[in-house]
């Protein structure tokens, strides 16, 4: 028995060694292809070999996209913003509130003025909390932030690539006293910031603009330059970022809203899949910003926050802001535990009572269900259950009735206005696909005047780093790359070693000892 075991164990380890050699051989063949930056071959649950490939962005853009895919997308967006200013209504917009082009994905009509006002005032508030004195805004658009923030700054540089939008902005700025001298308006693409010296601003703002970048590589190039022109102690504020972990929920939400009552859930699923595949805007995971510290060492830390606001719209539900802290700063640091909300299911009143009774304690809670997304998640859970024998109308009613309760993020922010003496911070850094968030409440006096303390927030699972952004307009080229890679494997490997599938990813997660984390890769594929 003992001998048998030994033999069997020997056979197993020999099988494993052979398997490892096969995986290495597959990875080597894939890495030899010019479209591959990194590759890992992994055995899936059914013992099939799957390959995960980090594509070479240059190859996808320059070779498969013939060097035009990215720049074409940038030009198309510029044209769209130009066109938005040629409409009959654009000339009559009020100064600082030109919302032309801000259309709802749900109704395809303009987003209501009161919702836009709330959005802009909250965005302005969040930027002013960074205490900007010399600010460069990349993608200033029609100047909704310029008008409100420039009076607080000594220098404000407003950069945009759309000449028609800038012309309208210049006309409006001329009507405001002092603005012509205070604000420099510069026509330039986001990626061309070479005219600014290093460390010449304390704040760079990119608000509601990165979704119009062609890919994550372009965004990284822009952020490298943005961080470069910010002096240590300053910030890069990236606002109104569309969330990749919530892209599926967003697509489900919009398609269900637009579906006729009688549409089958099967057809609805197809529409959601097509919407995700055809998404023309850049949708980014918070994990992208967290990982950015590795490639831009001047970033000392990153905060990811859900947006403020009571309005129920696609910005408050599915978008976030990323604040990149540049260089060393002397901030109060907190490394507290975050008990899970599900352990005690606190209500807001429970939390308020606790704060009153413990005015000197800090409170961290993670995984608070997000009321904003309750209906969307209920509908998505029902759709994913695979039962196709319902209609969209029935699904909507089901979602209304079964939406999980939770706490509205704005209710936490509102605690700051009560006489509790606590400062409130929220985080979406954990990248959970249910949109749940984490909160940290700190007695205001323990902050000692620091606006943004360094909080050690709950981190995302390693699998969240596998896909960092979508690839708008690149579906065709990425499918072509997968086809090329399979053909390349067929030519260079024995049949039994050709991977069953090739999945394109943004990063290969690794274990503490540097091995590729296979389980995380497989989990990310299924997510």
């Amino acid at each position, binding site marked *: 028995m003992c001998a048998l075991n030994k033999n069997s164990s020997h056979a197993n380890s020999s099988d494993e060694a052979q398997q490892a050699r096969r995986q290495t051989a597959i990875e080597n063949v894939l890495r030899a292809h010019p479209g591959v930056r990194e590759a890992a071959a992994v055995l899936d649950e059914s013992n099939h070999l799957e390959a995960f490939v980090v594509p070479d962005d240059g190859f996808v853009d320059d070779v498969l996209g013939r060097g035009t895919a990215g720049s074409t997308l940038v030009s*198309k*967006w510029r*044209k*769209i913003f*130009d*066109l*938005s200013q*040629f*409409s*009959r209504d654009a000339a009559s917009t009020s100064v600082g509130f030109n919302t032309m082009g801000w*259309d709802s994905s749900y109704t*395809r009509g303009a987003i209501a003025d009161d919702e836009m006002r709330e959005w802009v005032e909250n965005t302005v508030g969040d930027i002013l909390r960074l205490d900007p004195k010399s600010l460069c805004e990349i993608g200033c658009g029609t100047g909704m932030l310029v008008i409100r923030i420039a009076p607080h700054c000594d220098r404000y540089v407003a950069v945009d690539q759309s000449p*028609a939008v800038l012309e309208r902005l210049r006309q409006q700025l001329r009507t405001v006293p002092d603005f012509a001298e205070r604000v420099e308006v510069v026509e330039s693409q986001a990626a061309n910031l070479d005219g600014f010296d290093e460390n010449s601003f304390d704040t760079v703002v990119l608000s509601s603009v990165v979704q119009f970048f062609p890919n994550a590589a372009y965004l990284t190039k822009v952020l490298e330059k943005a961080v470069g022109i910010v002096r240590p102690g300053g910030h890069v504020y990236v606002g109104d970022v569309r969330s990749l972990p919530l892209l599926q929920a967003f697509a489900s939400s919009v398609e269900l809203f*637009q579906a006729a009552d009688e549409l089958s859930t099967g057809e609805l699923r197809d529409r959601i899949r*097509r919407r995700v595949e*055809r998404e*023309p805007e850049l949708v980014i995971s918070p994990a992208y910003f967290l990982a950015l510290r590795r490639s831009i060492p001047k970033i000392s830390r990153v905060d990811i926050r859900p947006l403020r606001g009571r309005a129920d719209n696609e910005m408050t539900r599915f978008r976030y802001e990323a604040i990149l802290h540049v260089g060393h700063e002397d901030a109060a640091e907190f490394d507290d535990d975050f008990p899970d909300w599900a352990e005690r299911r606190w209500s807001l009143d429970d939390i308020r009572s606790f704060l009153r009774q413990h005015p000197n304690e800090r409170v961290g809670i993670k995984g608070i269900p997000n009321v904003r997304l309750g209906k969307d998640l209920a509908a998505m859970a029902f759709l994913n259950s695979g039962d196709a024998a319902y209609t969209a109308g029935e699904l909507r009613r089901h979602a209304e009735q079964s939406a999980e309760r939770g706490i509205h993020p704005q209710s936490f922010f509102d605690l700051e206005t009560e006489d509790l003496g606590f400062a409130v911070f929220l985080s979406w850094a954990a990248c959970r696909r249910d949109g749940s968030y984490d909160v940290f409440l700190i007695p205001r006096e323990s902050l000692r005047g620091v606006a943004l303390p360094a909080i050690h927030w709950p981190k995302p699972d390693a699998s969240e780093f596998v896909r960092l952004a979508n690839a708008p307009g690149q579906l065709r080229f990425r499918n072509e790359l997968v086809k090329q890679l399979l053909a390349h494997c067929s030519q260079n490997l024995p049949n039994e070693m050709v991977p069953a599938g090739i999945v394109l990813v943004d990063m290969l997660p690794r274990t503490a000892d540097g091995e590729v984390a296979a389980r995380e890769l497989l989990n990310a594929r299924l997510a």
Partner: protein
Amino acid sequence: MKGRAEIREFVRSLLANSGDEGALADSDSLLFSGRLQSIDAVEIVVFLEENFGIDFAKIGFDKERIDSIDAIYALTQSVAKS
């Protein structure tokens, strides 16, 4: 000068690029119905600029004016007359 048939063919090719091979009447909404996305509107605009010499900076732009084959054709006719 191109006419309605060319406009129809162009719109069909745009829809086909998005995987939409469904029936299409000349009066069907393209943008407000969601069959084409905002970013596809640029393709229509460039098509009209290049083939009909339309300058939207001069005549103004609203999505309604390019939302169907009928609307696009009417726009080309009105510009030709002016």
